[in-house]
């Protein structure tokens, strides 16, 4: 429904079925003096899982909101499933699914009522709704719990129901904004299985996350940092820069203190915590040259195993951010 003064759709050729799912060029958004997204360019191919990575506040959500036509870019633009995000936001929104970390379910509605609501929002026919409902209940493992209040479901079920609601209209592209935030590891793994199933059916997935281990599920990645894309490519390509470097994983007590001490060393290019372990990047130096064990023992730390490890995406990210002159 539109009031007379709302802008109506202009008839124009769009929504081409082939080509990339997302094409973005010079996309920029500023809020006053703050540059949230600084003229980014990237493409997402149909059917791929595209990981959009970066720390909180780096511009991930702002980018998604522009791509969904929820906010207008300050300059630049792009197409999503062939539709222009600035000129045809309504078309864009009909053709995408969106799921955020808040899951966006109505807690005081039952499972069925939530499904029915989103079916109405996306204008499903009764037949289509019946079909999708059955599919989603099975997918989310909620068969027999249709009349339970959504608020009473535990988080893994809520997450899958939210995915079901976001995809009730079978979109060919789904934006997932930190979909696994605050979910336990088991539920996260199950969720990624569902995402892989969708990808195998040819659905394009645009996923933001700050869990680097999840990024390995993606076909291609883009790192966004302070509004700029600082790296883009397959996980292997992103890590390629580091394969010649020596990355050491150090088991040590009082990890944070040890990291602080190590970062003062000239031989250590980068260091950060990975769980309770300390990761250091020695660049082209070898482990022997650095003499890290002696250094740590001299400083009163209790040192366990020191292993040379393959660079992880997290190593790559720290490396990239360090090159940008910042801290991850």
């Amino acid at each position, binding site marked *: *429904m*539109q*009031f007379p003064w*709302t802008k109506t759709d202009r008839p124009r050729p769009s929504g081409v079925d082939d080509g990339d799912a997302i094409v973005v060029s010079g996309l920029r958004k500023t809020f006053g003096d703050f540059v949230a997204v600084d003229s980014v360019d990237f493409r997402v191919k149909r059917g791929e899982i595209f990981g959009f990575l970066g720390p909180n506040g780096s511009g991930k959500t702002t980018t998604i909101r522009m791509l*969904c036509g*929820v*906010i*207008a870019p300050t300059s630049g633009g792009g197409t999503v499933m062939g539709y222009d995000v600035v000129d045809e936001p*309504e078309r864009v*929104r*009909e053709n*995408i699914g*969106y*799921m*955020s970390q*808040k*899951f*966006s*379910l*109505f*807690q*005081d*509605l039952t499972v069925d*009522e939530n499904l*029915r*609501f*989103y*079916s*109405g*929002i*996306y*204008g499903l026919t009764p037949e289509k709704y019946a079909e999708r409902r059955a599919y989603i209940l099975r997918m989310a493992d909620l068969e027999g719990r249709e009349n339970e209040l959504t608020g009473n479901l535990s988080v893994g079920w809520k997450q899958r129901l939210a995915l079901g609601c*976001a995809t009730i209209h079978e979109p060919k592209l789904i*934006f997932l904004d930190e979909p696994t935030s605050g979910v336990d590891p088991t539920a996260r793994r199950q969720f990624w299985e569902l995402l892989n199933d969708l990808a195998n059916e040819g659905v394009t997935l645009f996923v933001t996350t700050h869990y680097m281990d999840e990024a390995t599920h993606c076909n291609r990645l883009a790192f966004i940092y302070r509004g700029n894309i600082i790296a883009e490519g397959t996980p292997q390509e992103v890590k390629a820069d580091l394969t010649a470097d020596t990355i050491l994983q150090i088991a040590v007590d009082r990890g944070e203190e040890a990291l602080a001490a190590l970062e003062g060393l000239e031989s250590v290019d980068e260091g950060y915590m990975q769980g309770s372990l300390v990761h250091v990047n020695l660049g082209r130096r070898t482990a022997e040259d650095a003499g890290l064990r002696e250094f740590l023992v001299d400083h009163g730390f209790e040192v366990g195993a020191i292993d040379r490890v393959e660079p992880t995406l997290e190593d790559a990210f720290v490396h990239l951010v360090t090159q940008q002159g910042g801290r991850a």
Partner: protein
Amino acid sequence: MGAAAKRVTAIARKEFIHITRDWRMIVAVLVLPLLQLLLFAYAISFDVRNVPSVTLDLDRTAASRSYLDSYSTSGFFDVQSAVPDYAGIDSAFDRSEARVAIVVQRGFGDALAAGGTGAVSVLIDGSEPNSAQLGQTYAVALNQSLGRRALASWAEARGLGTVRVGSVEPRIQDWYNPERRSADFLIPGLMIVIIMIVTVQQTAVTLVKERENGTLEQLLESPLTHSELIVGKMLPWALLGVMDTLLITAVSMGVFGIPLRGDVAVLAVGIGLFIVSALSLGLVISAVAPSLESANIAALLLSFLPGFMLSGMAFPLASIPVALQVVSYLFPARYMVEIARGVFLRGASWGVLGPQVLALAAYAVVALGIATLLNRRRRA
């Protein structure tokens, strides 16, 4: 059903489920208004009757006794006791036993018998100005009528025809509310204010809630448009507003005996426009408020205070400061109170209330437009 209609229905249905699932909401929407009506209608009464009083008879004649008796029988004064001296009056005022004291001075009976003026003092406890004012008015009126009677009986005793004494006596006749019951005056206004409070309050929080739960973001990423969202949100509340109106009207007529003299169609159209206006006002608050608490407070301030002060419900709008009169045009209640009173009490119809209905229609359109625009602007 078109896609747009489907989306509006989905929102309206969901909104309705929210309401029915929360018993506190049902209480707030259907029980509280009735409770408010009963409380306010009984509590806010401008009728002062049975003003507690004491008498002091310093004359102690037949004339003074009959004069004081007329107070007891008037219905306006509740004569608690006769005190022996002025000190008695003081202590009666102090203990709040009386607000008015009637003192008949020595020589009252003689003066009347001589055709002169009997001296009477009416002492009023000014610490409660409202009843004091009314007590004074009643006492003056009573004395005038007693005075005339005294004059007549004096003239008669002397064989003079009262007609020839001649005095002009205004015959005041009340129309529309012949018994001058303040309930008749208050309830049509009160009814509007209550409906305003319910509708503004409920819609003010509805969008803020969705924003805080993150569900609004989800809806923004869907094909749903802002106009659809707003219409869908309004529908169930409009329905409840109409239910409230019927309920309150039934109680007002059944319990308080408020007459319904005018054209019901005017009232129905007026109420419809008024509800849309009030809901839009709520949605404007919802668009601007940063949090649930601030939405609640803003809704309370913008519905309760103007409802009571600036609607003409309790105080005639002509008697409030000009600046506030201007402000009163910004709230829909003033138009609707006029319509309600016109239809209920004066039996008015389109011809008279047309301007008010038009004003309300204009208000509804503008408020709805602002609500839609403000909610759209939050996107950028």
